[in-house]
């Protein structure tokens, strides 16, 4: 499926979303494709995602062995780390949750 998506615009749109503290895109081998974080931080996050993802997948398959991970997130009181995988890549966003 061809798209005329403007990657830079969409990336910036996510980045300017209130509360977003960082965005990372990696491939399934963990190589950094695009990131708002420095190199070391990007690589650290990448390793953690690659460590977490197969375990998230195994958890889902416990319920339905055909299930594939479309999204996972981890919440603390104040922060939300969201990861959306799709075929060859992962998109991760770190968001600071507002308390009203």
């Amino acid at each position: 499926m061809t798209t005329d998506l403007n990657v830079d615009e969409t990336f910036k749109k996510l980045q300017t979303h209130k509360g977003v503290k960082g965005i990372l895109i990696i491939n399934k081998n963990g190589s950094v494709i695009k990131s708002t974080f420095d190199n070391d931080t990007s690589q650290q996050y990448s390793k953690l995602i690659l460590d977490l993802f197969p375990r998230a997948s195994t958890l889902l398959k416990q319920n339905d062995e055909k299930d594939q991970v479309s999204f996972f997130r981890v919440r603390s009181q104040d922060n939300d780390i969201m990861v959306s995988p799709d075929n060859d890549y992962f998109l991760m966003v770190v968001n600071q949750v507002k308390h009203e």
Partner: protein
Amino acid sequence: SSSNEPEIIVLNDLDKSNILESDSFKSFFSRTSKVIERALCLDDSIDILVDYTKSDEESKS
């Protein structure tokens, strides 16, 4: 991190640029950015960790 993990390959700028311009990447980013966008909007509207039936002090316990 454990030392038996394969070292992450660092891509050069040309590799990154080619990936960012590929159809497979654009298709991925088009879909997943929308998922994350909706998740962010939900975070903005409802914090599931907050108990709206209680005072703030109790919800922090």
